[in-house]
């Protein structure tokens, strides 16, 4: 039972304290800041903090309910992320059947496989079966215009929004120790805490100390100072939270570093795609953040690496 787990209680309690501090800081800033640009930043900051409350309650609630609820929540996130991706990606009438199958067969199946503990098929369903079957279905529509590009877009959308994202709840499959007091869901929570703290503190440190632009052509808001500041905080917290994981403190720091670097590139790669498509945000689902994909872009890159490295070295 997750709710009765003392580590889970302490971590969730800690997140609520952090959010309360952020809400209070936002309240104070709202009264103090007067410049037009500052007002806009503070408004966005407060919208983000409000959205965080909702996201933490949803995720914490699903985890407290158990693995089934957690997997269902991630299936919904994946469905909505894929919908944002395909909405902004040009497709043609010939892709209709492949897209229908992607949304209503591939997404549910991938998460059902986690639910029934079938790792073998989970790992190859999309890269083997789906990547063979979908182009075969598309080719029957007989439309060769942009055929390669269209198939590449559908396949990469599925890899990103379904396969990569599903590696996060797949952590529930891992048996990493004989210690029954540490449910695998803690490992999922650990990944999300490190990756999101890294995002948040990259944003905060970037706003406070950001000078040197890191990739001005891709994402003007990313700075070296932000990345280093956010990364150091995330790795530090990741090391302190090693009790949630099977890792020793130094291993936890290394894993957190892996999460931070992968997450950073996830955000950067998806920014490049947004630029390519000519949009600023993936959607409008989460107030202040943009779309679902704007919030999980870093998870999409961090989850598959974290899952496989953990499985390779720590699964028993």
């Amino acid at each position, binding site marked *: 039972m997750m709710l009765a787990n003392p580590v889970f209680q302490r971590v969730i309690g800690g997140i609520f304290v952090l959010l309360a501090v952020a809400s209070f800081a936002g309240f104070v800033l709202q009264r103090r800041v007067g410049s037009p640009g500052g007002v806009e930043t503070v408004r966005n900051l407060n919208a983000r903090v409000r959205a965080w409350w909702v996201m933490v309650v949803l995720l914490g609630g699903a985890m407290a309910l158990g693995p089934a609820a957690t997997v269902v929540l991630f299936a919904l996130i994946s469905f909505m992320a894929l*919908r944002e991706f*395909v909405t902004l990606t040009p497709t043609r009438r010939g892709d*209709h059947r492949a*897209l*229908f199958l992607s*949304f209503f067969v591939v997404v549910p199946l991938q998460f059902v496989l986690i639910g029934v503990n079938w790792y073998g098929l989970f790992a190859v369903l999309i890269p083997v079966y789906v990547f063979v079957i979908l182009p075969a279905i598309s080719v029957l529509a007989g439309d060769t215009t942009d055929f390669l590009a269209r198939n590449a877009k559908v396949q990469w959308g599925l890899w990103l929004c379904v396969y990569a994202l599903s590696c996060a709840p797949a952590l529930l499959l891992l048996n990493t120790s004989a210690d029954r007091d540490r449910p695998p869901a803690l490992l999922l929570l650990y990944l999300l805490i490190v990756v999101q703290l890294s995002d948040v503190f990259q944003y905060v440190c970037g706003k406070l100390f950001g000078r040197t632009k890191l990739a001005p052509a891709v994402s003007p808001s990313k700075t070296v100072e932000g990345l280093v500041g956010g990364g150091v905080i995330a790795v530090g917290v990741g090391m302190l939270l090693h009790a949630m994981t099977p890792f020793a403190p130094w291993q936890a720091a290394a894993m957190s570093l892996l999460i931070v670097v992968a997450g950073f590139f996830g955000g950067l790669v998806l920014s490049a795609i947004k630029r390519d498509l000519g*949009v600023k945000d993936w959607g409008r689902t989460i107030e202040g953040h943009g779309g679902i994909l704007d919030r999980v872009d870093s998870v999409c890159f961090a989850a598959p690496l974290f899952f496989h490295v953990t499985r390779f070295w720590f699964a028993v």
Partner: protein
Amino acid sequence: MNALVRWLVLGLVRLLAGAQANWQGCTPERRPRIYFANHTSHLDTVVIVAALPPELRSETHPVAALDYWGATKLRRLIATVCLNAVLLDRSGRGPGDPLAPLVDLLSRGHSLVLFPEGTRGEGTVAPFRSGLFNLARQFPDIELVPVYLENLHRILPKGTMLIVPLICTSWFGAPIRLDPDESRGAFLGRARGAVLALAERPA
């Protein structure tokens, strides 16, 4: 019961088609208007109603084809109960002026949603039929609001029953009016241009 059916249908449409509203050229207001939109799928009517704020829904009536929406009991129920639709006989065989029920609603201060292409296109916007012009001439003071429904031809294209659940945004443009000495062709071209302009807005 009616409220439950309406809530279910509109909720399902929001889940499957997003149905977001983007008021670019005007704000949702409680005044008689004719919204005119491109027509690409059977979901158009439902999506545009789902995108309207709830307080406008009871006095805004989409004009739907009798031969489709009146064809089965379920469709008729959805059209009349959920959508407040007026069913229009496209065949021309019905008695009297087919526009009469529309004129009646407009004179009572209600709003209409029209699809002036008359039939579903495939991502392109066909030339407009003259119903919009005739109504605009009878009600010169009414605001005519162009609407572009984005992505619906990708969600449910002609010739399939499979829905791909993308996000459909309804773009509401700046109202236009019929100029006193404007010809039918010029007006319909301008109205169609207003819808197309919403489609080609910079990202």
